[in-house]
């Protein structure tokens, strides 16, 4: 049995070097050459400044922008490091609400959001993704229904026709992969950038 101690150290060290250093560094090198944009996080720049990532949702509150889904991410409380405070779309600390199906806190939150949305657009039924938080709190997408739901508010805030805004939503709607896999969706940041391009603020 003692003769197993040498391989236990040396085989481990070699395999660690291969799988823990050589492999990730090689992938980093290759990916940086053939997929440089994705490898760096699919960042979007405007006037030389990074304004976000195409894959990471960001918080929108103004009427003139389409809003993403609610986000349950948190950040450390600046006054008390042992506590956390809500910090929607905190891309340095992903996470969900983790509230269960019989949670009163969840029910109260959804109820409040539904009432707000109903007041904003009484004519359509509230899409479920607009009142539920995503798993990672960084969901970049909303459903096409959730985008169409917000069209009247955005059109009014921008003094654009609802048809023109709706047209932009349609252009920014992505279908299922190969027609089967996944769900139809609208990338909120891409849609808002298209809005700004169509009618500067």
């Amino acid at each position, binding site marked *: 049995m003692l003769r197993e101690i040498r391989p236990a150290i040396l085989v481990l060290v070699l395999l660690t070097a291969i799988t823990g250093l050589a492999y990730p560094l090689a*992938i980093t090198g290759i990916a940086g050459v053939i997929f440089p944009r*994705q490898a760096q996080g699919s960042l979007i720049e405007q006037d030389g400044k990074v304004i976000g990532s195409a*894959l990471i949702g960001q918080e929108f509150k103004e009427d003139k922008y389409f809003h993403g889904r609610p986000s349950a991410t948190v950040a450390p409380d600046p006054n008390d490091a042992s506590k956390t405070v809500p910090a929607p779309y*905190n*891309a340095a600390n*992903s*996470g969900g609400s983790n509230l269960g199906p019989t949670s009163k806190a969840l029910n109260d939150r959804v109820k409040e959001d539904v009432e707000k949305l109903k007041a904003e657009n009484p004519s359509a039924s509230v899409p*479920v993704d607009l009142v539920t938080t995503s798993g990672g709190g960084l969901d970049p997408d909303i*459903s096409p229904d959730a985008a169409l739901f917000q069209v009247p508010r955005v059109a009014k805030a921008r003094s654009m026709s609802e048809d023109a805004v709706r047209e932009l939503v349609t252009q920014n709607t992505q279908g299922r992969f190969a027609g089967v896999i996944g769900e139809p969706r609208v990338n909120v940041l891409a849609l808002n950038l298209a809005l700004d391009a169509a009618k500067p603020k």
Partner: protein
Amino acid sequence: MTVIGWIQIILFCAIVAALVKPLGWYMTRVFNGERTFLSPVLRPVERGIYWVGGVDERREQHWLTYTVAMLLFHVGGFAIIYGLMRLQAVLPFNPAGQSAVAEDLSFNTAISFITNTNWQNYGGESTLSYLVQMVGLTHQNFLSAATGIALAMALIRGFTRSSMRTVGNFWVDVTRCTLYVLLPICVVYALFLVWQGMPQTLGAYVDATTLEGGKQTIALGPVASQVAIKMLGTNGGGFFNANAAHPFENPTALSNLVQMVSIFALGAAMTNVFGRMVGNERQGWAIFAVMGILFVAGVTVTYWAEANGTSALHALGLTGGNMEGKELRFGIVASSLFAVVTTAASCGAVNAMHDSFTALGGMIPLINMQLGEVIIGGVGAGFYGMLLFVVLAIFVAGLMVGRTPEYVGKKIEAREVKMAMLAILVLPLMYLGWTAVGVVLPSAVASMANSGPHGFTEVLYAFTSATGNNGSAFAGLTGNTLFYNLTLASAMFVGRFFMIVPAMAIAGSLVEKKSIPASAGTFPTTGGLFVGLVIGVILIIGGLTFFPALALGPIVEHLAMNANTLF
């Protein structure tokens, strides 16, 4: 439930089934030491490792030596992870300036990764440096997976060899599995993931100024290389806190499908490796059928429950299912499917928050783990777990006809049955025992995020996941406390090694027996009767053990939900 949803489920099952034979063929060649198309490149590396490590690849080991070698290997792996986490602040590749990780969290994480559990009491992007993610976690993702497959190979040799004393060489099995199976697939797979949008960089986190002028710090890192092996090796430990629900860790519906397939690929192929090695592929397909039937049943329940939504959402006039904690690009179906896949296998990656699933939708992942993760299961681990149930099922069949039971040419006798029972019974002792402590100890109770029966389920889920070496969580539970760091670590340790050692003892006992040819009185183990019997044994043993606990958690919560009770 929708037609397009079911098409996605069927497509997933078809891809997995189609991979079983080619992967099984390739893996059999690797473990028999035959030449493969990668040998010209990898064979020199392999020989170099043996030369440095002082391994004679033709010298095989007795089951005890094999097990000791495996345990020593884990001691080293533990030391590497623990040391790196404690020292990360002064080591390179730490652009975010992460400070040293606390003793109890480092201990928990090190145990978690050497046992292939990958329970996350840490939040990747807010706790760990890139060096820890690569050298600590990525390397152990490979090696704990390779260990699982090596052990399954040793047990299979127990069945296929006749009157021998050795079950293979641990160092050779682990090295071959890492070099010829895991690494080549991961290289291609990781690049695919980057193409889909997964970051792979050593650069620092990026500060963005959002359209509305806010500041957003975007965490990055060498994500793709870790995620590839995290999935393929059924490890499941996320680079980011939100695991595969984070858009960087699972950018598209296509990356999601491929990730799900990769969780099952090697585990499913193990059934074919077994069939080939015992000389009858139908033996493998019979086991695959047992797994497949239990899997589809689980998917059906979870998909139905999640698509149905919750009473609270219905009361507010919301339709479209339970989207709380789910990502839009995956929707209800791919989130439900992922949850069942990740817990059927011992992966534990999540692409949606299981804590926010409906009571019944979240119960299926719990049951999958409590059944011992034998539905495909962890790479290797799932297969030797399943063989333990097969031993029991054969024993029960033998009792019924009054004949010494045999399986693929080996007599199953008292020693094998005792060892199988030991492995199967120690698991509920861990998860039920610790849950009982966790729901009465005041400091532990404070960790629950939800009240009512859901809080109980959070605790039960945590210990079940740890014991089963799964690693998924009802993540509301605050696990980074002294109590949970230590108790979960003990559950992970017992759940891994008290399963492995009895399984290896069975391998050692079987390998010494003579192979007996099948006769007219042999119970056929390739047909529907056998499949039904194994499913029955799994459900009866599992059901008797955990039904009372489920009744206190998800079942009572489902009834409360239907009565519109909130907590």
